[in-house]
């Protein structure tokens, strides 16, 4: 099988792992499952799209579909590079800010009132609904509708009610295949996130403070760690990574789904939780692996199984496999795959099949 067949599964798996890690980061610190987390990606995608389209309209940039070569590598980049960079930065910052807003404006005050973790989890649900409401209003604002109309006349159909910027995705030639920029970007981002977070949590002062705050918040406080701020940083990071995933969602709608206030949230939120739990809710690297694993199961293993068993309808039932993965993990290895100690081969779970 060529690389092309792996594009959609790899993209999906990387997106899931980028989102799962945030669920784990926020759960580890505050012991709250964040229902709004996946929505950060949607919010970030909307803001990134609005920013990029504004720049396109303002500078009157047209799409450049020509295949170009740099250093012997062929690539297609429909928009100037800096627009992608701006979109990426906007998406990640918006994701981070939304997350930190939830932490400081809602979770902290409610926690101080003495609400238990379960009630806090429901409050994240409440915040999530407010985000949806905000997005519904945002996308139907006159400036945004005007923006979409202007952008459509320059680069082709743009519609904020079912947003997708697939036609502005970049390509790069690897071997014989033109690889989608969103696929490569998602994959690279998942790997970079793993490395950066591993370094951050194990080697830096912030990481030490974070680990001590998670292990024993009171003792960390007594040792002079500003536990609230450390947790807020963890939440910000979680939102930042979700925002990056949101940026990538814009270009991967042919793999996943168009973007609307409720999409792709409704179809992936359970898989994201599944990735986080299967990989290990107390382990950052584990959750990245877990998200990847769930992604590969849903988009690669199940179709493969369907082909082998010649039962094409099986593909539609892929979420059932995630359900079983979560059930089995929670019931038998509650701390996830990362908690298993492989005495002979110390190998990270997930990604092994790729």
């Amino acid at each position, binding site marked *: 099988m060529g690389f092309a067949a792996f594009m959609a599964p790899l993209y999906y798996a990387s997106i899931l792992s980028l989102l799962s890690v945030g669920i784990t980061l926020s759960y580890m610190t505050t*012991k709250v*499952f964040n229902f709004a987390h996946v929505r950060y990606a949607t919010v970030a995608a909307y803001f990134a799209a609005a920013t990029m389209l504004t720049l396109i309209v303002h500078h009157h940039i047209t799409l450049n579909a020509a295949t170009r070569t740099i250093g012997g590598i062929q690539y297609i980049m429909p928009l100037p590079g800096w627009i992608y960079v701006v979109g990426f930065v906007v998406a990640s910052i918006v994701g981070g800010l939304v997350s930190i807003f939830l932490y400081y404006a*809602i979770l902290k005050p409610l926690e101080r*009132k003495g609400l238990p973790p379960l*009630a806090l989890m429901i*409050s994240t649900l*409440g915040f999530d609904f407010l985000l949806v409401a905000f997005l519904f209003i945002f996308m139907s*604002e006159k400036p945004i509708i005007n923006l979409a109309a202007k952008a459509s006349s320059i680069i082709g159909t743009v519609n904020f009610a079912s947003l997708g910027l697939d036609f502005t995705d970049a390509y790069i030639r690897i071997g014989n295949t033109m690889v989608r920029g969103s696929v490569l970007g998602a994959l690279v981002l998942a790997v970079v996130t793993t490395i950066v977070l591993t370094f951050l949590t194990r080697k830096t002062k912030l990481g030490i403070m974070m680990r001590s705050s998670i292990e024993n918040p009171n003792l960390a406080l007594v040792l002079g760690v500003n536990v609230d701020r450390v947790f807020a940083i963890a939440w910000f990071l979680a939102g930042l990574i979700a925002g990056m995933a949101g940026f990538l969602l814009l270009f991967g709608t042919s793999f996943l789904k168009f973007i609307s206030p409720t999409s792709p949230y409704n179809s992936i939120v359970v898989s994201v939780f599944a990735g986080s739990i299967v990989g290990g809710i107390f382990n950052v690297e584990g959750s990245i692996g877990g998200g990847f694993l769930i992604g590969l199961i849903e988009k690669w293993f199940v179709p493969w199984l369907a082909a082998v068993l010649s039962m094409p309808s099986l593909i539609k039932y892929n979420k059932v496999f995630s359900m079983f993965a979560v059930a089995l993990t929670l019931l038998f290895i509650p701390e996830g795959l990362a908690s298993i100690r492989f005495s002979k081969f110390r190998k990270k779970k997930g990604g092994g099949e790729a």
Partner: protein
Amino acid sequence: MTNFVILAEQILSFIGIYYIVSIGLNLKAGHMGIPDFGHAMFFAMGGIVVGNIVSHLAAAVAAKSIPGVTVAGVIASNTKTLTIMNRQFFPHHPFLDIGLIILALILSTLLGGFLGWIASLPALRLRGEFLAILLLTVAEGLRVIFTYTKSLMGSTPTVGLSTPALFSWTHNSGVAATVFTIIMALIVYAFVERLHNSPAGRLFRAARDDEDATEALGKNVVTVRRDAMIIGSALAGIAGTVYALNPFLGGGSVAAVSIFNRVWWTFWPWALIILGGMASNKGTGLATIIVGVSLIWPVRLYSFKVAQLLHASALGINPDQFANALEYAFIGLIILIVQASLPRGIIPEPPSRTLPFEKYAKGRILPPESKKK
């Protein structure tokens, strides 16, 4: 006038159905402390009983006398078969219809309870948020199975199955369905109030508040949790049946996207029980009434007009999306405001009523020592 009647019917139907489904969740989450985030799947069982099983049974009877109706046709050509039956069969067989309604209620109780029993198996091992996530995932898995299995939910997930019009024998089936919905809600209310003050209800709350102490008193917490899960889920199943039989909320069909909808049947009930007060049956009722009236009357009815009003101004909001946004904002704000200002709800959990002391002292029930005197 007719507009007013329809509005009243809509509001009452909303209140009745949401009361039953929320009280089922309240029994699990409020009384027993099981954070069920998969409540929609139990609700869906009730919808499936009506849309699938009852239609099949009715078709088996109707096939003998009505041309064009076959048992296989219920799934294969669902809309056509059900339209024929709704026009030519159900209006003329009132006793069969009533029998089918009762049968549907019994079946949905059993099916909801059975699924609740299965779901209680992991509920005995897991606690807190983990259980919530597991139940959420299981509900999603079940939704996927039902969505794509033709023999269960018909060929298209969004259209689903038409429901039999079991109230078509009455003069005004809308009024009849509304009255039926309200009666069911009242029966459920009487049941949970009784349960609340019964030894079983006290045991639920005792096990919720302190498992170890309850175990130490010789009660098996595992069975208590299982019972709460079964009863709560069975109530959700009943709510699903009532919903499927109701023309205002159900709209004459059940589809996987509507009956398994986690926003409608899991998160809304959560918002309602938080608003009403956990483990408070009256509170849930009041919350359902407040939300039912304000959602259907001002929010749904006028949001479109408000949006049009705003649309005329510089804002330029799409009315449809504005209505949608308002509903989401409404539920989100309810959750957050209630949690911030009245964490125990509008009617906090009442203390359970025990035997009045005077009765006790008068010696109707005497403790063993005093009898000896």
